[in-house]
C-alpha cells in the first residue's frame, strides 16, 4: 500500500514538473529574450561638417527610422555634437548617465550640466561632479564627404 502511494505521488510530481518546464521555458524565452535588431548600424546623415565649429558643443537634431515593436516610423533624434578637429566629431546621447534627464551645455562654466541632480560633465564627456557614475554615452559617428553620419546604437563609456 505504501509503495502504491509513493508511486502515485511520483506520477503527480513527475508529470507536473514536466508540464511546468514545458510551459515555463517558452514563457521565459517569450518574456526575456529579445531578438537582436537586424540593421545594426543604421547610420543617417545628421549635419554638414561645415556647420560645426571646432570645440563648441552644438545640439543637432535629425530624423531616423525607428522600429518600435510592430510600429515603424520616422522620429526626431537629438545629439550633442562636438567637432574636435578637422575630421573628427563626437556625438553624445542627450541623456544624463545618472538617471536619464536631458542635460545642456553651459558655455560660461564650460560644462554640460544636468538640471535634475546637478551632474556635471566636461566637453570630452568626463564626469566633473555630481552623482553620475560614468561619462556621457556616445553615438557611433562616421564622416563621409564632409557629412556627419550618426548611428543608432548608443555606446556606454
Amino acid at each position, binding site marked *: 500500500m505504501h509503495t*502504491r*502511494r509513493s*508511486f*502515485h*505521488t511520483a*506520477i*503527480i510530481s513527475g*508529470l*507536473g514538473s*514536466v*508540464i511546468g518546464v*514545458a*510551459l515555463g521555458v*517558452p*514563457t521565459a*524565452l*517569450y*518574456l526575456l*529574450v*529579445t*531578438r537582436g535588431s*537586424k*540593421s*545594426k*548600424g*543604421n*547610420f*543617417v*546623415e545628421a549635419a554638414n561638417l561645415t556647420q560645426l565649429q571646432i570645440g563648441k558643443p552644438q545640439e543637432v537634431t535629425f530624423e531616423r*527610422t525607428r*522600429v518600435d*515593436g*510592430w*510600429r*515603424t516610423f520616422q522620429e526626431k533624434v537629438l545629439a550633442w555634437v562636438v567637432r574636435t578637429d578637422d575630421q573628427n566629431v563626437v556625438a553624445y546621447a542627450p541623456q544624463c548617465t545618472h538617471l536619464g534627464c536631458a542635460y545642456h551645455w553651459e558655455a560660461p562654466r564650460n560644462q554640460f550640466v544636468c538640471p535634475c541632480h546637478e551632474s556635471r560633465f566636461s566637453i570630452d564627456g568626463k564626469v566633473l561632479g555630481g552623482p553620475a557614475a560614468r561619462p556621457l554615452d556616445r553615438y557611433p559617428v*562616421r564622416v*563621409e*564627404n564632409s*557629412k556627419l*553620419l550618426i*548611428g543608432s546604437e548608443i555606446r556606454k563609456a
Partner: protein
Amino acid sequence: MFRRTLAWLEDRTGVESAVKHFLYEDIPASSGWHQVFGSVALFAFLVQVATGILLALNYAPTPPEAYDSLRYIMTQVTAGRFMRALHHWGASLMIIVVVVHMIQAFLWGTYKKPREATWIAGVALLLLTLAYGLSGYLLPWDNRAYWGTVVTTQISALAPGAGPLLVRLLGSDGTSIGAITFTRFYVAHVQILPPLTALLIAIHLFLVRRHGVAPAPSDELQPKKKFYPQQVAKDTIAIFAWFVVLMGMALLARVPLGHLADPTDLSYIPRPEWYFLFLFQFLKWFEGPLEVVGAVILPTLAIVALLLVPFIDRGKMKLVRQRMGAISLVVLAAIFWGGLTARAVATTPETREMDMSLVQPWQEISAGNLASIGLFRKAQCGSCHELGKPGAAPDLTIAPSARPMDWLEEHIKSSPKAPGALTDPQVQMLVTFVTKRSDKAVDAWQNAPQTAVDGALIYQANDCTSCHKLNGIGDELGPPLNGVGERRERSWIEGHFADPPKYSPDSIMPAFHFKPDELKLITDYITAIPK
C-alpha cells in the same frame, strides 16, 4: 526552519489544513478514469489564461494595429508563434474536453438530485467556453476574423425582439463592424468572460464538494476512497496526455495569419471555427423567413433543453450500461454533429490565401530592388563588400552609399571581381539601389533566396513593370500582380504567359515564351508576392 514557517502559516491562516481537507476528500469506490475530465478542463482553462496574458503583453487591442502586433508576435517575438499556437489550439482542445466532460456527466446521469445546480453551472461554463471562441475569433483582425464576425453579428440581429438591441450591444451598425465591435469583443474576451468563468468554476467546484462526487448505484456498500493521491494521479496522467496533444499541435500545426481585415474584399468566403461548422451547415436548411428558426430559435431551445436535463430525467441512479436512452441520445447527437460538420468541410472551397506571418521582406520590395540585389550578386560585389560585417570593403548595409553617382558607376564597371559583368542600364540600377535602398531592401539583400532574385531578374529583363504594378511600382496598363497567386491557379498563370488571349480574351499582353526553368522562376516569383 521550514517546518516552523509552515507551522506559523498554518496557525495564522489554516492554509495547510485547508489543502489537506481538499486533497483528502472522500470519493466513491467507483471513482476512476471516467472522472478525470473536469480536472483536464480546469487545466485547459489555466493554460488559456496564462497564454492569453502573455499574448496580451505584446498585443495592441485596436484595429488595425491588432493585426500588426499579432504579426509582430508571430514573426519577431521569441517563442511568439508558439505562444499563439498554444492559445489557438488550446481553445479547440478546451472545447473538446469540456464537451467530453459534459457527455460523461450525461451518460452517467450525475446531474440527478441533488446535483441539478452543478449541472446547470456546467452548462453555463460550456456556453462561456463557446463565447471565448466567438469573441477571440475577431482578435487577429484578418479577413477570416472580420468576415466571420460580420456573420456572427448578423445572426444576432435575427433574434426575435432583441435583435436590434443585441446588434447595438455588439457595437455594429447592422451591416458592417469596426473599431467599436472590436473593442467590445476584446473587452468581453479579457475582462468580462474571465471573472465570470472564475466565479462559475468556483460555484461548480463548491457544488461538487457540497454533494460529493456522484456515486454509482453499487457504491453504497463499498468503503470510500480518498481523492489524493490515487485519483489525483489519474487526473494528472489525463492532464499530461491532453498537454502532450496540445504541445504536438502547437509545434506541428501552423496557425496562419491571413490578410488584414478588408471590408471591400468580396472574394473572401468566411467559414466559422470547426466547432461551429455544424451550425453554419444547419443554417442552409432554413430558407427565407424560416431563417430565424435555424439561426436563433432552435439553438436557443437546444440550450434550454440542456439546462432542463436534470428536471426531465428524474429517475433513480442506474449503471451506465443500463442507460440506453442516454447512450442513444449521445450517439444521435454525435451523428447529427458529425454529419453536418463533414458536409460543411466537404463543401469548403480550397483557399490559396497566403499566410502573412510567413511573408519575408523580399516579398514586399519592388521587383527592381530585388533585381538590383541580383545584379549585386551577379557582379560578385559581395566578395569584397560582405553584407552585415566589415570586410575588405565597406559594409553597405550600414548606411546608403554617400559617394557621387559617377564615382559609383565607374567603381562598379571596373570592379576587379567581374569587370563588365553588367550592362550600362544595369550599372545605373545598382547605383540607384545602393544609394537609396530601404530597410526592408537591406533585409532582402542579405536573406532573399537566389531563386526569387533570379525570378525578379527575369521580371526586370522582360520589362513587366511597364504594364504591371507590383509592390507599388509599375504602370497599370495590365492588372496589378500583387496576390495573383491567390487569385489564379498556377497552371492558368503559366499558360497565360505563352498565350494571353486564350486565357483572357481582351488581353493586350504580348506572348512570352519562356524556357521551362525560366517559366518556373518567374511564376514562383510573382505568385510569392502577397496581396
